[in-house]
């Protein structure tokens, strides 16, 4: 265990998260303009996240009458830390992995399970009605997407015979999981949108709650919350690329380039979903998740299981 190795790993995850977040914010702006039918100007939009963030940063922090100040401060930090841990669990190339643990998808699952805590605290802490409704909504949402998320990751682990991510990537050498387990990636992406409370699953922060759990937040805290949310998007995109799109596997280019390219593809998909899919109603989402998505994810496990058995024979 070398201290230098730990420092390098922490720094590289920080850089990856920062770059990923910036790209996500930029892609969001570009896609929004494209969908709105106004001139896109991708290069000009490159500075937009920076200037928008700067404008927001110069605002003072607001508070409410009797908030839970400590948990309110903790919420964005916790969300970001969980996203960073999730991102650290994803290998960039063979051997290039920050958090090399034997139970990679369990680590990822544990980090993502705690996202519910961060978002709930963000909504609960200000002691304000609309954010609180948002926070409670996210619990309903979180309890609904968590099981499909874990189950499709488990299905991907079946052919690899391991819960670590690198063997899962290697097990896709002949055929990527996106083809082998056709239900896996769509279910994963739906859960990923929920994790990032983004676009169609932005239930805690929906426009119907006037911003919901982040309604009372201003200034730097507001940007930090948005950054943490985008970090989650980046982390789930990277994990999706590794587990379903064959990670670093690919011809010609070096492995890391493939991994980055695949992550970006998923990131664009997830970010774009916000501009094309309407926000789903909370209650109907919960029912659909339990009555349809969870059974489908279990079906996915069986498809994966039968396939793994046939392949092993």
């Amino acid at each position: 265990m070398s201290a230098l190795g730990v420092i390098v790993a922490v720094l590289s995850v920080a850089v990856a998260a920062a770059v990923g977040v910036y790209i996500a914010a930029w892609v969001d702006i570009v896609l929004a303009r494209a969908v709105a039918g106004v001139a896109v100007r991708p290069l000009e939009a490159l500075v937009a996240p920076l200037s928008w963030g700067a404008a927001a940063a110069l605002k003072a922090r607001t508070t409410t009458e009797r908030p839970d100040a400590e948990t309110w401060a903790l919420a964005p930090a916790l969300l970001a830390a969980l996203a960073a841990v999730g991102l650290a669990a994803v290998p960039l190339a063979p051997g290039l992995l920050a958090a090399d643990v034997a139970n990679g998808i369990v680590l990822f699952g544990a980090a993502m399970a705690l996202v519910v805590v961060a978002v709930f605290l963000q909504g609960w802490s200000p002691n304000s009605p609309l954010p609180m409704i948002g926070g409670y909504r996210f619990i309903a949402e979180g309890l609904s997407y968590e099981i499909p998320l874990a189950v499709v990751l488990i299905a991907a682990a079946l052919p690899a015979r391991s819960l670590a991510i690198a063997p899962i990537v290697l097990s896709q050498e002949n055929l990527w999981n996106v083809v082998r387990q056709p239900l896996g990636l769509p279910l994963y992406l739906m859960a990923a949108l929920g994790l990032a409370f983004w676009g169609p699953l932005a239930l805690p922060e929906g426009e119907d709650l006037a911003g919901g759990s982040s309604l009372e937040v201003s200034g730097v805290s507001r940007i930090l919350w948005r950054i943490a949310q985008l970090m989650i998007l980046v982390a789930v995109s990277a994990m999706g690329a590794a587990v379903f799109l064959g990670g670093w596997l690919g011809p010609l280019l070096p492995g890391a380039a493939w991994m980055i390219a695949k992550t970006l593809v998923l990131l664009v998909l997830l970010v774009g979903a916000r501009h094309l899919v309407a926000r789903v109603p909370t209650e109907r989402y919960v029912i659909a998740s339990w009555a349809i998505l969870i059974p489908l994810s279990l079906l996915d496990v069986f498809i994966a299981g039968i396939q793994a058995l046939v392949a092993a024979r």
Partner: protein
Amino acid sequence: MGLTATIARLAASAPARCFPLVGAQAEEVAPWLRLDPLLAIVDSPRAADVLLVLGRSDDEMLRAAAAVHDAMSPPRGVVVWSPDGVAPGRWPSSDAVIVREPGEIALTCRRLRDDLLGRRVTSSPDVLPDLDPAPWRGVGPFGQGGTGMTGGVPYGRPLAGRADDRDGLKLDQMLVRVGPFLPPFPPGLQLDVKLQGDVIQEVTIPAAIADAAGSSGGEAPLGAPGPRGHAARLAVAGDSPFTAALTRPVPIAELELPRARHHLAWLAEALRVSGLEAYGLRVLKLAFGLDLESADSIDALDRWLRRNVSLRWGTSHVGVVTGAQAEGLPGGPVVRASGDDRDARSLDPAYQRLGFEPVVRDEGDALARWRLRVAEARQSLQLAKRSGTSESTPSGVAEGPRGPLAADASPSAGLVALLPELLAGMEWGDAVTTIVSLDVGVVEPSEQRAAAGAGPS
């Protein structure tokens, strides 16, 4: 300070984030502001740089406006749009920047924002006195104003009380005083919503609003397009063509284009509330540049809406207005979406000559109202195209985009009155979908209301 200045320079190209307070006679200005790249309309005053006061407000709305102003995070500024160059009513903030021309609103906001962030202008000071809602400091055994487990006013407010609920649990009932400036709701709409969890138990309408919606006139359709683009569009004509049509013949094209434009602007807002802000902007652009040749664009829009499963999921079977409920309403798209074909235009010989048939849907839910409005927008373009120079026949009733206008009734009064019945038992999100789909227009100038009460002057 060096750091602040550097960040302020970085921020210079960002849009000014505005929280609009839409008053009477400003409904036709407000939607188009979203099209301006200099501005970003935000949902929460906490995130806004500029409070944008549009049109005229009554005293009650001004009180709320002051509260919204104080809720904004400093540095903050105020821009008031007032065609006659004076601040509306008794607007208490003396440092408001007053704009006469609608076309200058965006640039003024942007300049004010830059000055605020660069610390060249001081942040607008609080309007309301710094008073706790109830005295609590040092009160009670712990000095926080509370007594016992649930008594007293800890930190200035009491705790919520219990109430029965349909699932047999007796938990707390939370009263949320919605409006008049809560973004997903129509400007001016005030509701006292009693919630348990996220389900609405009871909705009551504060007396003043019920009053306003019931009073005369004031349908505010969107102005006609003019030659000078944005600025000209924003220059509001004193009267809408629909109120004009009450008393004199108006070319049908001048009624039908604004109707289509109103429906599309409504659709843009409805899409925004559904989480599709970007697509809403596309629709808003279409509405802004709407002309007789836009039929294809509306068809494309209709196809897109019909294919979008997520929108259908969020709106079908939501907020059903039954046939019986529709019968009690004066008319309008809401009624026609519930299987009732009342439309003042059917009685107009000029429209009859054009072969006018009202668009009707039977489902009565939010989705039906969405589709009906798009279909009506399409129909309006056809009518406008076919009408040539023919004019409407004044009969004392004219069909506005929200329903029939008469000299003494606004079409929204019935809708506001229907809300308590419609919303009880709904989940919050569905309730918002329902309210948005009804297209309620609430804001009325208090002067007009007073004038209506005092009789002709």
